[in-house]
């Protein structure tokens, strides 16, 4: 059995390598969506994981924990780098309104839907149910730009403003979901049952800010000299590991802590361009590794997961449609954009996956494994739906 799977994996790797090498190879639409979103790497992870080949068994996963933390930290830093205030100020204010409210509305709707569904269908402790609902809502609130890559030049040319708004929203609408996701860590089931949530919240937030400040100071000291590229790589890797490690040891999110550090760096550091370049050189491999690591954690042992994924996907689609509609109606400046704006915001992408991996690592249990299994399936559903609805949004005369 193992040999068969090993053969499968070799073919798979070869095919993936082929894809990476000959990127311009024309594929049918289904396969193109599959490849553009890197779904094959999720499947690769699934094959490598305990459910099939068991090459990456739970013990190996433990050994790889520093790599996972580095990965999450890297994504957090990258996301933080998107919030350069000087750059963001070039966009109209209503764009911020749109991005923030779209994220918030989707988050609230998905949270309500998921929480109710879990309360009715699943028997898990209430404290953990809230954590699961927040995580799924946060992952649902984020949007990726992958869908927009399918648009033709004609479609982009005729709807330039809409594309610009969609791009803006999908770049930064993860902010509120990510911050809200951070709340899960103050509501850790192991500690919060006997304590007041709010009681633990403020010391936690203060500690996080204090730690972030210390880390930022450290980062600044490291880059106070102009360093060679190799040295800068070392500093970025070292600081990301230090930050992620500190966050995990404090029972906090490496993703969010590194986001804070990234945010401060991009706004305060002289060397931001060089650091950004270093972060970007491994952006694609980081994303692919993220997919493989998530794939390893996934277990498909019940048909119910497919159904739950469908329900979660529907909540998200509904949330995005409604949020898109509301932001284009509540703000007068955004009224010129189509009410069906949410149609263009379905692709889920990297940050959602990072939130799911962060959750799986921090709240590791059978329930969390099941949760990320169906959530990942929902991410794949969303990617396919995204193409269909984008086409509808950009249809001539639509």
């Amino acid at each position: 059995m193992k040999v068969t799977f090993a053969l499968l994996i070799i073919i798979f790797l070869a095919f993936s390598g082929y894809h990476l090498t000959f990127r311009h190879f024309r594929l049918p639409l289904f396969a193109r969506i599959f490849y553009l979103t890197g779904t094959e790497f999720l499947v690769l992870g699934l094959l490598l994981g305990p459910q099939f080949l068991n090459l990456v068994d739970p013990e190996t996963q433990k050994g790889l924990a520093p790599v996972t933390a580095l990965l999450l930290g890297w994504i957090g830093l990258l996301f933080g780098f998107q919030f350069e205030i000087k750059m963001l100020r070039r966009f109209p204010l209503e764009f911020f309104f749109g991005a923030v409210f779209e994220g918030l509305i989707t988050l609230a709707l998905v949270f309500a839907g998921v929480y109710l569904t879990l309360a009715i269908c699943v028997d898990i402790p209430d404290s953990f149910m809230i954590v699961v609902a927040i995580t799924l809502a946060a992952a649902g609130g984020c949007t990726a730009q992958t869908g927009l890559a399918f648009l033709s030049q004609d479609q982009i040319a005729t709807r330039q403003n809409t594309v610009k708004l969609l791009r803006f929203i999908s770049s930064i609408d993860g902010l509120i979901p990510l911050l809200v996701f951070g709340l899960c860590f103050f509501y850790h089931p192991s500690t919060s049952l006997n304590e007041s949530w709010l009681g633990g919240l403020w010391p936690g937030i203060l500690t996080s800010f204090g730690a972030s400040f210390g880390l930022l100071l450290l980062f600044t000291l490291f880059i106070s000299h102009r360093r060679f590229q190799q040295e800068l790589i070392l500093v970025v890797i070292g600081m990301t590991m230090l930050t992620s490690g500190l966050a995990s040891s404090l029972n906090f999110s490496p993703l969010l802590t590194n986001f804070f550090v990234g945010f401060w760096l991009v706004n305060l550091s002289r060397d931001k361009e060089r650091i950004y370049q270093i972060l970007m050189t491994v952006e694609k491999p980081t994303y692919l590794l993220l997919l493989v690591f998530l794939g390893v954690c996934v277990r498909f042992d019940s048909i119910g997961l497919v159904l739950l994924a469908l329900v979660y996907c529907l909540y998200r689609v509904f949330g995005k449609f409604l949020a898109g509609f509301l932001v284009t109606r509540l703000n007068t400046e955004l009224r010129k954009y189509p009410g069906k704006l949410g149609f263009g915001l379905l692709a889920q992408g990297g940050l959602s996956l990072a939130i799911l991996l962060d959750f799986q690592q921090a709240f590791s249990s059978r329930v969390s494994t099941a949760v990320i299994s169906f959530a990942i399936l929902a991410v794949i559903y969303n990617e396919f739906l995204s193409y269909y609805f984008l086409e509808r949004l950009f249809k001539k005369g639509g």
Partner: protein
Amino acid sequence: MGRYKQYIPDLKIYGITLFILAGFALWIKIIHIESNWQQAGLTTFSLGFILLAAYMAAQILRIAGLPLISGYIFVGILAGPHISGFLTHDMVVRLRLADDLALSFIALTAGGTLELQFLRKRGKAILINIFLQTLFAFALVFLSFFFISNRLNLMPALTKPQIMVLACLLGVIAVARSPSSAIAIINECRAAGVFTTTVLGVTVAIDVLIIVMFTLAMTVSEIILGAGTGVDFRMVTVLTLAVTGSLALGIVLGKGISLYISKVGHDLSLFLLFFAFSVFKASIWFNQFMEAHFAISLHLEPLLICISAGFTVQNFSRYGYIFMEGMERFALPIFVIFFSLAGASLNLDALRMTWPLAAFLFIIRTMGIFGSTWFAGIINRDPPQHRRIAWMAYITQAGVAIGLAQLAQRRFPELGDYLTTLVLAVITINQVVGPITFKIALKRAGEVKQE
């Protein structure tokens, strides 16, 4: 003092940075660790801490003229289980994954650094050096240890044949060198020239030769102790197969790397990291597979595979330069992690227990190296300056020697404790002194291009 004045602002920044880092390290030590997630976080933090603290400490020591890897090693020793205990034994073992990856990566670099053109020119000199160094280091350590052990009755619990075996194994292990340290210092100084190439060629070749020598020494030891009946030809065949198999596999994989560079090209550094890791893991898996299914201990040597692969890309393809550039991108973090962990693994307890004997063996080994390099220099008609300083380049010793001692411990448990303790103690001295002397040697040879 005036010479150092210009460094005062830098030193202040380095000092403050190390102070904050130490503050974080103290803080994390008082956090109550409960879950696996927190434990993993502590490991991640430690790795980041070691990386940054070692880098900073090395910058400070560089001002004092010491090589960077000495800084990495000192931080490793300070953070390790024997001094501050920030890195516990468990953690050092857990971080072995990074260590293994680094070792394969360094071996790839070692292969890539060897240029056939230079080796052809210095082939004879390298061979003479290898022969004399092997002979002198082995003979001096073997004879002197055997002599003083018997004379001073240092090990009353051991019989004469056992002392002879111990001396023989110590003699062979004394021949081992540390290519990783050599490469790190050569990289740091961007050293190039006749002296550098000869040292690198000798060091890498001895790393291959030592495996063969050690196997022979084990066979001889078994005969002396009466456990063996004669030369085990099966073992010799398996060893030959393992060495040639590893080298051949390295050539094939080297061709694979060249193909990757020519056809794909992008993300080369990451590809090479992945390659080094895969070679290490796959070799271990293959060795276990052969033992479990065919009862053959055909051990493919990941280091030999990587050296051979690097050598192939450098010398039998057009992509040597691109390959070395790709290796350089992640070289610094890899070196820092590797040598800091090596520092943390140094056994100070062993040194404390056996320091007089360890110091004696260190001096004897160094004398052996001095004598051999001096004679080799005369035969090769090297410049007098090179003859005087060559010994300084061969003192470093690391992982391979420890590995060999552990293998011997398993084979001869009754000698194992003595051997491992002594070897660890001598390596501790060699690894602290060796990099410093090597850097001085490169400077005096006039082959340092960048400080």
